[in-house]
């Protein structure tokens, strides 16, 4: 007991030395934390727990859940298939205008999603830059379709994947790739058997981040793809629509999204954006 008392006293003593943060900073830090937590508490408090199974089983909810899952997984796949090569080029090649390219890649991160949606319309709409040919030649109409949802989600999710993977690629010694070449591996084999496995942890983190971003996408989706139940109405859109008719349903759907976000955050832990703790 004597030792544990002494230990506690020592800890208090050490804390006194650490307590150098101005009290104003401590107060504001606490306010910030409260600002982040109180809305979540509100959501949890008002959630109609007893009717939850019923609410989530409504046709609208099930449709939105199904559509959200399908479209976000497809969007994450698109982001991965296109994003990994782009990250490789950014990490491994030096070329003119590289900074500009990186800027373009980062743009969807800061661009208001609704602007992204408008931009997608002007590009892939029926009279858009590319969309007019897709429609005239192939009869393909992307806006207001499930494919449009996937495109809008992939558009906003891509930077998350590229950033994570590029960071990981920069972290591995390119001489591993050289060693593989001397062992008879052509560049393609090096990429798939050496490079990708060596960044697998970050790649998974990037895919999960991209998927989570796609799942939560709202602005670009509603602008480019509209809000049609069963076709383009994903979970966030369903929350928005439900808010006008059934507050309880909106709360229930919100809870689903919150649960998914928390799960993603916990599963990624120290791996956020490729930095390991």
């Amino acid at each position, binding site marked *: 007991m004597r030792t544990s008392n002494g230990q506690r006293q020592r800890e208090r003593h050490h804390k006194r030395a650490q307590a150098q943060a101005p009290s104003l900073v401590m107060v504001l830090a606490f306010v910030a934390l409260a600002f982040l937590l109180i809305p979540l508490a509100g959501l949890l408090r008002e959630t109609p727990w007893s009717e939850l199974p019923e609410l989530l089983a409504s046709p609208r909810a099930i449709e939105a859940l199904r559509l959200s899952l399908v479209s976000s997984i497809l969007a994450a796949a698109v982001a991965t298939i296109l994003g990994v090569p782009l990250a490789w080029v950014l990490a491994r090649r030096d070329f003119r205008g590289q900074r500009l390219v990186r800027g373009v890649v980062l743009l969807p991160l800061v661009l208001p999603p609704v602007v992204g949606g408008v931009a997608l319309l002007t590009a892939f709409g029926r009279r858009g830059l590319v969309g007019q040919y897709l429609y005239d030649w192939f009869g393909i109409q992307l806006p207001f379709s499930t494919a449009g949802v996937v495109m809008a989600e992939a558009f906003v999710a891509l930077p998350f994947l590229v950033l994570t993977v590029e960071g990981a690629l920069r972290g591995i*010694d390119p*001489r*591993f790739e*050289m*060693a*593989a*070449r*001397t*062992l*008879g*591996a*052509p560049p393609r*084999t090096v990429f798939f*058997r*050496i490079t990708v*496995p*060596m960044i*697998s942890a970050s790649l998974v983190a990037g895919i999960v981040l991209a998927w989570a971003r796609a799942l939560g996408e709202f602005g670009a989706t509603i602008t480019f793809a509209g809000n049609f139940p069963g076709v383009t109405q994903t979970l966030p859109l369903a929350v928005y629509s439900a808010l006008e008719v059934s507050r309880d349903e909106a709360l229930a759907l919100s809870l689903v999204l919150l649960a998914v976000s928390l799960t993603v955050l916990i599963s990624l832990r120290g791996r956020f954006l490729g930095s390991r703790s």
Partner: protein
Amino acid sequence: MSLAAHITTTVGTVTIDAELTCHAGETVALLGPNGAGKSTLLAAIAGLRAIDDGYIHIDSTSVDEPARAIFLPPEHRRVGVLFQDYLLFPHMTVRQNIAFGPKNLGIASEGAWIAALGLTDLLDHKPNELSGGQAQRVALARALATSPRLLLLDEPLAALDASTKQEVRAELRNFLQQFQHGTVIVTHDPVDALVLADRIVVLEDGRITQEGPTAVVAREPRTEYLATVLGVTLVRGVAKNGVIACDAGGELITSVETDGTVVAVIRPQAISLHTGKPEGSARNVWRTSVTRVDAHGEHVRVDLAGPPPLSAAITPAAVAELGIAPGREIWASVKATDVLVHSA
């Protein structure tokens, strides 16, 4: 001929221009200070960088020849490379690391080395579970599994600690004596070159400054760099009637009648130090002062102001007995037969 090359290329401020050959079964050490361009030569031979001019022939096949627009990528050269820090693929087991090359080339794995290198029990381990010496043997087996026509070793012992270095060096020597193709070793450690190589090529500042059989190069260093790493002193001068007028001042009496421009090699152990003028058979006796005292393992290196400036190696006991310290006036002597003269 495993390798015949004339490589001209530029890295940063160093222009490399070197001719290099390696016969089948021969081990050639590329010895030189850091930044001399050794690793660049190795990368060029392996195909990891293109040369500006010249040619690289491996087994009489041209693999890089700018004038004829030939460039064979590394995966088609069949050159085995042992990298300095081994670069074992961390996500693969030892077995998978070794199988990687043969699988790419669509050939049967040259598995004999696995047992010969004592790796049979390590096959299912991951690289991070291996000691430095084991990792080196795995990297060697991995390079050999592709049945290379030429083996390149980049500082093969630099990543090991001093205690394992000795043992691994002996193993490597054993292996190289059995290896039928040519081997080029890049090293900045003269001991590696002396123990492992049949022939030493000295590369300084992108140029070859000396080359020859290991024993000859060790006995007759012609450059200051080589003399320094071998622990001997090099004296340049003009000899006439058995006396060298040293370029740095002073004279040295020799036992041979070589005339003209010469380099003389003097081992530090051959120089004796005395408090008073020595009486004896040594033909070279002069009074000088100590400029520097350095402990080197079991002996102490004493730099003398000259002329000519030389270094002596004596025991710590002698240092105490003679009261040696920088600035101390002292007598030095060396026998004429210990001045090894070569015409420059």
